[in-house]
């Protein structure tokens, strides 16, 4: 079986977000592989290391030239080869799922791993949209995973708690913190990664059009009162805070 692991490139979580010409401007921002996707890369490697019959692990990224860096990170972590569909067009998850599904079919994929939520666009849709296109089951917010033969078992979070599950491959799994601790690429592996295949595809091969238009972006600048109360006298501070909550904010009766 081959595993496809999706890799996106996003600003580092602590990076400041800037807006220019009504869109987020990433110029000069430190970009990293999306942490949620990194759990997927790590999990693919661990599944192989745990003895599952994994032939190839393939990382896929769709995006501008710079996302190569994220693919190089995945290759240095241990992925076998990478596919980069190069485009500067922003594709919504439903459109993007067409590309992922086509590649999954062409590469004889049995398991797709994708981050549970994108750290830039906050979308959770790609895994589910891809699963629907392929007619596969999906497991979202997964924090435990095992493969035996073609049976996938594990645990994932749901609205009101968590569930253990069982499904037959092929399947789509969305990953999150808690699933594993991603490894750091070592220098020898970074060197080795340079020789691994990084295939370049053109977006036009996939016949995909965006279905959502991006109109505008604005930074959230909600003014907060920042009313600070000195905590040296706990009694007085408590009384003052409750008074503010009751009479100024009117959130307590």
């Amino acid at each position, binding site marked *: 079986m081959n595993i496809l692991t999706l890799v996106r490139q996003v600003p580092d979580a602590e990076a400041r977000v800037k807006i220019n010409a009504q869109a987020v401007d990433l110029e000069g921002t430190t970009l990293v592989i999306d942490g949620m996707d990194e759990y997927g890369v790590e999990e693919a490697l661990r599944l192989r290391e745990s003895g599952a019959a994994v032939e190839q692990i393939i990382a896929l990224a769709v995006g501008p030239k710079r996302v190569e860096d994220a693919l190089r990170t995945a290759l240095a972590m241990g992925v076998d080869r990478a596919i980069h569909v190069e485009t500067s067009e922003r594709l919504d998850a439903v459109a993007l799922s067409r590309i992922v599904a086509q590649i999954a079919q062409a590469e004889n994929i049995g398991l797709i791993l994708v981050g549970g939520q994108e750290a830039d666009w*906050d979308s959770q849709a790609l895994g*589910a949209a891809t699963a629907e296109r392929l007619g596969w089951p999906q497991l979202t917010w997964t924090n435990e995973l095992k493969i035996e033969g073609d049976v996938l078992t594990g645990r994932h*979070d*749901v609205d009101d708690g968590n569930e*253990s*599950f069982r499904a037959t491959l092929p399947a789509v799994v969305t990953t999150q913190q808690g699933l594993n601790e991603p490894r750091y690429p070592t220098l020898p592996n970074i060197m080795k990664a340079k020789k691994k295949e990084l295939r370049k595809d053109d977006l036009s091969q996939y016949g995909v059009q965006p279905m959502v238009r991006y109109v505008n972006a604005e*930074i959230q600048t909600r003014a907060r009162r920042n*009313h600070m109360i000195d905590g040296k006298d706990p009694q007085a501070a*408590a009384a003052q805070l409750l008074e503010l909550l009751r009479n100024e904010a009117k959130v307590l009766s």
Partner: protein
Amino acid sequence: MILIVAEHAGGKLGKSTLEMVTAARESGREGPITLLVLGSGVAEVANASAAYADQVLVADLPELATYNAELWAAATAQIAQEGEASTVMIGGSRSGREYAPRVAVKLDAPYLEDAIRLTSSGSALQAQRYTYLARVTETVEAEGPVIVVTVKPGSFAPAQAAGTAGEQYDVELTLPTPRVEVTGKSVEKTSRVALTEADVIVTGGRGVGSPENFSAYVEGLADAIGAGVGATRAVVDAGWRPYAEQVGQTGKTVQPGAYIALGVSGAVQHLSGMGKSKHIIAINKDAEAPIFKVADYGIVGDVNQIVPALIAEARK
């Protein structure tokens, strides 16, 4: 029609359903407002729904007793097609955002995810949504005979009941066999108000010190003022609290009238889940803690001293 899939639990219509009714009324999209109730033994929910919609479609089937992404997607897409829906609205809960993309693919429709505002111009529907860990508000737009939307909980005021009750109809569904088998479930129940429904939330971070302190301070204060209880990821990972209480990027998104953070540092991943609360109150012994940057009211102090005083004061 505007098809809204009702969210309900324990025989009660969820607040998020009423919020979607408001979203539908404000959206400018065409057609009567139709609530779709999926489940088993849902007569009560269907009756309650009738007050908010032009019509209520009910699928009361044993197969639908528990939520399943493939079944919910199949049912919703089928009804949307048969009813020639212009818009399909689904709650922006974890499960809603899980099956909504499948509905969009089935209908070959554009998908606007986690909308906080909806407006129409001509045949286009514009949605605002949060991106970049809720630090940016983005506007996106889609066009089509049918558009699938998830609505972020807490973003619209709950609708008032309409003057006349909508008619109820039973619907027939052709459902697939789900391919995921649930082999175990652990439901994290608390006796308190559900986080996404709570008007006031008290959240504890690692700064409260121990699971015992969490009970004494966080639960203690929540009980004294009638609030829900939240936790940071650090506290959940340490095993002090159940995951169901986690607020943040990988936990719940909440937007209460007041959010009281005790011993919480205010990491971006936490802020993304609570930064839109109407009032934010922080108690932290470190005056430099990032949580103070988003706070309306802040006390620099030790939770061990301030919180017992607060509880005593609140009980007065």
